[in-house]
């Protein structure tokens, strides 16, 4: 019944998770608990691989990006700035030339050349290393080394977001070929930190790269310790075993932590979003009034205030308000239970027993097994069902039963993948394309080397419009205008993607510059979703 066309972010829970939380033991940035002056960071999960071409889990990607730098990189404002490539020439709509910085050395002392760049991209595209990112480089027609320091990339057709794809780390061809599959356990690249040691499931040690071309990292070393349990992680921070925890402190524990005078909290705007997708083919949900009613029924303020302690904000778009393409002027669905009830009555779903426990209809909300997703689902369910005898505010729209989705989505994944048993979203007029790389168990990716995704690609609605955009790829103003048109043209909650992407900034630690600013690094996927909005793939 799902055939091909799939997800559309139907109506979403527009609660965006804004903050990045960074807690740092200030004084111990110098007197760190670990060996020497390495900064010790606690991470919630172990990286699976550090190879930038393969890492699709959050930790692997973050840490990998500290070790490996790409042709370009994102700065604090999510703008593209030169990385290993110091100059970029546009030769035509589909062809670009990159001049590499002279004198850049890999961590093993060998010089960076165009060959390494060519090798890196070719190895992904050819499918030889079964990279989950293969699909996002399908636009590449040719990558050639014109001279030892010049690379030319030709695209099959104009592809707007291509720059953001070029942030992927460049690996040393020699080392990658030598080490083969083990490269991911001991990568050699040209980033600000050099790889030292990787104990799977336990820790990763890095040291500052003295040969780095750019601003030298401020810490001599970085140690990432895997601490899976929330409570233990927090305790370690309190005790001083760990210096920094980023985005891995449950918001509810923050106040408790701040009782400790040595701990400081640093928060900045992020780009993660949480959404709830609605299946438009479901008979109940196909009525926009029902969807709107659900939108009004949810009290996001309460969830934000208590689950995230105010560290989030309600979203009404796929993009973060800080994004240049964000459409201003879109309204919000506020909590309005009376209106919800009216809408439902209008739609023909009357409350069967007034204030009693009878439900108007039942829905199933599927979610991943990631804990916070389940929590959110529970909160939604609770808000829309139940008798509220002692909490006040009775709204019986329906009972939404949270259920675990069959697979574990990496918890950085911005798409929640909530789908009910018939929740396959738009069938005939899909909205926008969001690629869902990395959502599959890694082992499967290895085999297919292309993104499996939990729903496959979503397609842009106005395909013809999207085509226009693609052609005028570099015209940012035009892109913004078209985006606004696309989104405005769809006032129906179905189309209003309410998504903010979270910045899981690994690059933050690069220079340990003011935590606040540097936290905003673009999470590849999220900046892609902005880009892919326009480069809607068919």
């Amino acid at each position, binding site marked *: 019944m799902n055939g091909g066309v799939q997800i559309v972010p139907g109506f979403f829970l527009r609660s965006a998770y804004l903050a990045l939380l960074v807690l740092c033991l200030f004084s111990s940035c110098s007197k760190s608990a670990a060996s020497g002056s390495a900064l010790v960071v606690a991470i919630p999960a172990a990286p699976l691989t550090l190879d930038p071409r393969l890492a699709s889990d959050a930790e692997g990607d973050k840490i990998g990006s500290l070790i490996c730098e790409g042709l370009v990189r994102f700065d604090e404002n999510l703008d593209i700035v030169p990385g290993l490539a110091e100059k970029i020439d546009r030769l035509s709509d589909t062809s670009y030339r990159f001049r590499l910085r002279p004198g850049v050395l890999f961590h093993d002392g060998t010089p960076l050349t165009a060959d390494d760049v060519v090798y890196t991209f070719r190895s992904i595209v050819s499918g030889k290393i079964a990279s989950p990112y293969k699909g996002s480089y399908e636009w590449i027609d040719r990558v050639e080394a014109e001279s030892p320091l010049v690379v030319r990339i030709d695209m099959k057709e104009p592809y707007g977001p291509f720059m953001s794809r070029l942030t992927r780390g460049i690996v040393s061809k020699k080392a990658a070929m030598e080490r083969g599959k083990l490269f991911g356990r001991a990568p050699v690249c040209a980033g600000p930190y050099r790889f030292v040691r990787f104990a799977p499931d336990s820790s990763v040690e890095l040291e500052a790269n003295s040969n780095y071309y750019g601003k030298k990292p401020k810490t001599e070393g970085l140690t990432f310790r895997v601490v899976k*349990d929330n409570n*233990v992680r927090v305790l370690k921070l309190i005790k001083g075993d760990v210096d920094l925890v980023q985005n891995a402190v449950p918001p509810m524990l923050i106040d408790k932590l701040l009782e400790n005078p040595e701990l400081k909290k640093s928060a900045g705007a992020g780009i993660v979003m949480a959404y709830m997708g609605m299946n438009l083919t479901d008979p109940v949900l196909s009525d926009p009034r029902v969807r709107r009613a659900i939108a009004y029924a949810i009290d996001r303020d309460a969830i934000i205030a208590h689950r995230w302690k105010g560290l989030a904000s309600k979203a009404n778009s796929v993009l973060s308000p800080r994004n240049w393409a964000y459409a201003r002027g879109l309204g919000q669905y506020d909590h309005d239970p009376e209106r919800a009830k009216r809408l439902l009555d209008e739609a023909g779903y009357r409350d069967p027993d007034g204030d009693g426990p009878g439900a108007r209809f039942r829905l199933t909300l599927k979610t991943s097994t990631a804990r916070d997703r389940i929590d959110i689902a529970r909160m939604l369910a609770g808000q829309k069902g139940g008798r509220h005898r002692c909490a006040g505010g009775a709204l019986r729209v329906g009972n939404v039963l949270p259920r675990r*989705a*069959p697979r574990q989505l990496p918890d950085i994944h911005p798409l929640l993948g909530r789908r009910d048993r018939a929740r*396959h979203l738009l069938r005939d007029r899909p909205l926008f394309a969001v690629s869902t790389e990395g959502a599959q168990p*890694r082992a*499967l990716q290895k*085999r*297919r080397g292309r993104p499996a995704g939990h729903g496959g690609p979503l397609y842009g609605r106005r395909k013809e419009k999207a085509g226009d955009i693609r052609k005028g790829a570099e015209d940012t103003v035009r892109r913004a205008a078209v985006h606004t048109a696309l989104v405005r043209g769809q006032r129906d909650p179905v189309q209003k993607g309410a998504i903010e992407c979270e910045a899981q900034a690994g690059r933050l630690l690069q220079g340990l510059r003011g935590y606040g600013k540097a936290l905003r690094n673009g999470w590849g996927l999220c900046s892609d979703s902005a880009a892919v909005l326009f480069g809607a793939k068919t």
Partner: protein
Amino acid sequence: MLNYVLKRALMALPVMLAAATLVFLLIHSIPGDPVDLILGEQAMQVDREELSQELGLDRPLFSQYGAFLAGLSSGDWGRSLFDNRPVLSHIREHAGATIVLAVCAMFVAVAIAIPAGVFAAVRKGGFLDQAAMVASLVGISVPNFWLGPVLILVFAVELGWLPISGRESWASLILPAFTLGFGLSAMLSRLTRASMIDELGRGYVTTARAKGLSERAVILKHAFRNALNPVITIVGLEVGSLLAGAIITERIFNWPGIGSLLMDSINRRDYPLVQGCILVIAFAYVVVNAVTDCVYRFVDPRVKI
């Protein structure tokens, strides 16, 4: 004796086979398509076929069963879906932690139960005995997934003497071992008491007393030894339940053993790994039972198989 050991070992094989078959049937009798469960309903057809082939699901049941058994005996237990490493590697990495935990828990249980049981038996009918009996009933009723967090609260959070969880130092072993061994100790103490009372009522004890041996000698040297026999058997049998209880304890304390591995792989729907963990625990159970039988026979040659 060797004869017996061999015989017992041979008897264990069909049991292991039965256990393996049970596990195999489990996976293949789940409602719904396993491929669906792993990949999700919206997976592309191509992916489904690939996974189906990879897991061998497209072949007839018997052929799969054959391949399954062949793999088991040859050491190929499949590969984890999550990181494509062999299942046995994962198991090998995690087995040590569980063994350490189980052994310590057993030690704790025995160290508490036997003295308590003997003590209660000797003071049979008295107030202390009754108190001990009630205490042991309470001990059996305490859920270990509650005891664990309570111990953590008291000793790790409030008092800060011990680590909360994980396996980092010798101190990390204390709370998990105690949690795991506690329920067993309650049960064992009752058993020890009953067995001891039994022994103390026997003829030879009266004789020994009449002969003028000190009470202590009577108890310790004679009755106790004999009373131990049934206790040993039960201890052996209960190792199995310890292994199963370890699943919960490892979860509470983030102890990196097979139980944790099992739970993680269940959550990730990594079925080959789930299967491997279940098999390993089941096999361990069978082996321990067999060993217990042999030990029992050794201790008490009157027993016939």
